[in-house]
């Protein structure tokens, strides 16, 4: 089987392209780091890719709000390509800054189907940027294919604006009902009590319902704040004497598997 070609976006201060591409290739993808200008000038054609990952970083310095200026740039410069890609239901995954961008652009959770912002990722309740290893529990109810059989994930968060808040109660309810929550912050081992927050610092930013990652109705558009691409090898983990990397590997493997369908 040919390796699915997955595009990892780069430029304007995105900066996790290296490890994201490594994680994807490690799990069997033909991952290519592509600078934004190449899409804009059509030197690279998005339609030739089977998946797209917008990695973490500080696009435009997080000025105004994390992901906002990049979302705006995508909307006004390459939206035609993105729209087509999105309509074909190819995987679109945003990590950290990429997640912020997808939310600000309105691709997540996109309940209305109109690609308008419905939730946000705002300043951490602690008021601080934090680099902290956390645990993630995949949600059984989730329609997201990337969360399937993941077990649990041990990975760092590294953000100052990761607090998930929905526009209103109803929006949050619908996100929950439709199974759009793919990952929640949890205790070591991915354990958590249903309907009970794990609290700070396990939930590092004060996100509603401990939400760490959400998808759209198709499950294919997905974003999360933590960085599983940083726990692909055991040596990356602070506690090296325990095996921790399987969850992250499975997660990236799932993305590659979905991309392979195109």
């Amino acid at each position: 089987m040919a390796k699915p070609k997955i595009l990892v976006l780069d430029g304007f201060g995105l900066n996790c392209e290296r490890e994201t591409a490594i994680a994807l290739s490690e799990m069997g993808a033909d991952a290519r780091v592509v600078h934004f200008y190449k899409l804009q000038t059509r030197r690279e054609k998005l339609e030739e890719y089977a998946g797209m990952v917008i990695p973490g970083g500080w696009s435009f310095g997080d000025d105004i709000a994390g992901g906002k200026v990049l979302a705006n740039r995508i909307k006004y410069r390459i939206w035609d390509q993105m729209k087509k890609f999105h309509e074909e239901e190819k995987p679109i995954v945003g990590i950290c800054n990429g997640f912020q961008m997808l939310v600000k652009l309105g691709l997540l959770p996109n309940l209305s189907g109109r690609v308008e912002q419905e939730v946000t990722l705002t300043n951490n309740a602690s008021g601080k940027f934090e680099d902290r290893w956390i645990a993630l529990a995949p949600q059984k109810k989730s329609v997201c294919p990337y969360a399937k059989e993941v077990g649990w994930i041990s990975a760092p968060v590294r953000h100052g604006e990761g607090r998930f808040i929905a526009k209103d109660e109803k929006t949050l309810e619908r996100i929950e009902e439709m199974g759009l929550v793919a990952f929640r912050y949890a205790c070591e081992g991915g354990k958590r009590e249903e309907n009970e927050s794990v609290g700070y610092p396990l939930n590092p930013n004060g996100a509603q319902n401990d939400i760490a990652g959400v998808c759209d109705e198709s499950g294919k558009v997905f974003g999360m704040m933590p960085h599983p691409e940083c726990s692909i090898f055991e040596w990356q983990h602070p506690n090296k004497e325990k095996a921790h990397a399987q969850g992250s590997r499975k997660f990236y493997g799932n993305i590659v598997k979905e991309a392979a369908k195109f």
Partner: protein
Amino acid sequence: MVSRIEVALKDGLEDPAGASLKRRILEDLKINSVSSVRTASAYVIEAQLGEEELQKIAQEIFADAVTSGAFVNAPCIKEGFAFAVEVGFKPGVTDNVGGSAKEAIEDCLGEKLEGGVYTSRIYFLYGNVKKEEAERIAKEMLANGLIERWGISKDFEYANAIAQVPKVLPMQPVPVQNISLELDDEKLVSLSKKRLLALSLEEMERIREHFADGKVRVGREKEGLLAMPTDAELEMLAQTWSEHCKHKIFNAKIEYEENGKKENINSLFKTYIVATTKKAGKGKGWLLSVFSDNAGIVRFNEEWNLAIKVETHNTPSALDPYGGALTGILGVNRDVLGAGMGAKPIFNTDVLCFAPFEYAGMVPPKLMHPKRTLEGVRKGIERGGNASGIPTVNGAVVFEPRFLGKPLVYCGTCGIMPAKIKGKETHKKEAKKTDRIFMVGGRVGKDGIHGATFSSVGLDEDSPTSAVQLGDAIVQKKAADFLLAARDEGLYNAITDNGAGGLASSVGEMAQDTQGCIMHLERCPLKYPGLAPWEMLVSESQERMTVAVPKEKAGEFAALAALYEVEATDLGEFTNSGYFVAKYKEKTIAMLQMEFLHKGVPQMELQAKWEERWEEKQGKYEIPKLGEALVRLLARPNICSKEYIIRQYDHEVMGMSALKPLCGVERDGPSDAGVIAPVQESKEAIAISNGICPRYSDADAYWMAANAVDEAVRNLVATGVDVQTIAGLDNFCWCDPIYTKENADGKYRLAQLVRANKALYEVCTAYGVPLISGKDSMKNDYRNGSIAISIPPTLLFSAIGKIKDVEKIVSSDFKEGGDVVYVLGKTFDECGKSEYFLEYEVKGGKVPRVDAQANFKLYACLASAIKKGMVRSAHDCSDGGLGVALAECGIGGRLGVRVDLEKVPREGGLADDKILFSESSGRFVVSVRKKDCAKFENEMRGCAFGKVGEVKKDDAFEVKGVGEHGAIYTKVGVLLAAWQRTMKW
């Protein structure tokens, strides 16, 4: 036309930034009247925009559907607050957010904006706040008057409280002036001072002599230049000859006197630094480029090279801690980007020295409270590293009262580059004749003019504010992305950064390859009009690189820059004329002989006299209860957990970090070094550590330096580095070592510098550690009227070393109950200037010596044991000695320990307190599986080591002493709480 959009959180939403400000107002300023703070932002847009357009950008760009509303030409909050404080930048100060907002607006409207976008922050203070309190909050916490302006208002008219557009008004550029040097001595000196040239009388005379030379005159006449130097020439010489660029003190002739014996030293740099590398670097083919480039370059493996550099940014950080630290980080990143053919930064390491943050005394004029300095510097590093996507993997924070006069901000970066690109070795570069001179990145403004000369004089009340700059991490990131792409395409011959001295230095240095250049300054892209040509030459505006591009590739180079949305300007070409020529609108404004520019500076002649000032006789004291002493030591600022700072730095972006600054089961124990595996296909790793102990300078700068080297090396060994692979970087921060009437202690300080160099040579050569790069900052003094504060002489020794297999690295935390605990290395009666004696105010005592031979042997044995997988944890003993090291291992693993001090290898007659808290060098706490003990002990044969106890299965921390006071019975939880509480902010 000017419009204003304000953005504020929606009602009822909590404001974490406001909440943490409220806390800091109470804790740091002791103002308790503020009941809450709300924050908002304002964007002033200078463009002809209709209401519809303004609403569109307000909603699409500035508002957030969930959290915040945007208000066009209307206040976001109208009433209810006591005071609104609005803080914006002064004209000409880099406005990062304004730049991004402008790009977003342009995307949204599909057209370029003519004017700028200027941002400000608004703080609404609620409660029964007095006007004076609001003013203090503005002045001492929210705004820095050097770069920011602020306004305070009681009502919604706050928007008028500061001028609307902080635009630099068009200035009439000062025409080029000629400056006569035919002056008497006194006037020459005052000219140097007035123009901030920082040149000595002798140097001024040398310049005068040069311009008076008949041949020089004739040459100048041909170019239409007067015999007198132009302002541009004088400024260029001053920058190029500055202490900052030419290291005049390190290259001086020194007469050193010790106990009546005199010794002549011709250049500390050659005698000790270069000599160290010659001796210790013998046979080490992996040293590729040392001392000659912006950074040292070493081979990592067959395919990859590493470039590393550590810089200081002290003076700017004293004036504007945030901007100073930020530009420090971005500056050292550019050093690496400009080393060889250009390396991609992969990690930062930062070491900071402040006065204690609980300082309660008077803060002298122009200085800041140390807590404010710390917060600003921390934030600058956070922005510089995080936003650039470069992990901060290791560092240290040192507190000492004299750093009130000048904080030290050491910024280090390591970068990686392919060993060869298109068949060419990347650690070499050479500009060629007819190559175009390109300036890439940011634009030129008045910021940072005189940075190089300014850092070469002490800080006093008249220090100029133009030396303060703000960096833009994203402009630089974009430039770096472009340059690395251009490098891989082979589009240039040489590259260097624009740091101290601006274009004058960067182009001037690169022009040495061809022996000449010609620049056309009117092509310089400016931030605003009105700069004099000399200002364009020496401005230190940030985010700029200078690149030598072959003529035939200039088009391709410029086109690629445009795609990356990076500004690249062709300023002229490299020649072999023998002259640095600068023109402005076709008129020659500077023409300096390359030879004179770079080699004309006269060698200084200085005197140094060593005197024993330290009283080794130890003061009387009563031995405290040891458990209580340990708790008190763990809470001391120099020892306590720095988690508050560390967590706010990204330490793992790029996914290369293997040993992070925080380790252990709860990821909060201290690590000895940072370990990075930078190449995907390889398990090889690089470790980085820092050694710094300014306290010991009061006894003898020799031992201060020796301990710094030993600490850095020891830290690397603890993680699994083989000593044979270690290279070092020396970074001296001193107080003025030049004797004058006003600086009566100059000879002693210079003697301290000589002794530190001797120690550096002795210890490095004993360990076989070559030096690959270094830096010095010699005027870290504050003077204002009767107040004089000088920092203690400080050497930062940074070390890198290689690890063969990243999966075999060792961290400091205890791993499992039942493991056997060893102490390696011998403990001596060395409590002088120790954290222990400082805590209990005991005078005197010996400071730690370094027995390099014994240590070297021990390090080799430990490295071998680690390589063979026998060691489960290893931690070095430094501040606070063995007691603190044991506590830290326990804290990391959340496991207790049982130790018998009788088993600790030591000199005879030591009481328990000294065994526990002496800071002798060359020691470790190590844990080993029971079954590996025999093998381990065999490995350590011939070294001082003691099997002192074992790791407990629970959290009981038990130390059995040799004397009557000798016992500690406590819990790891108690130690953890003490260690964490000091900086739990």
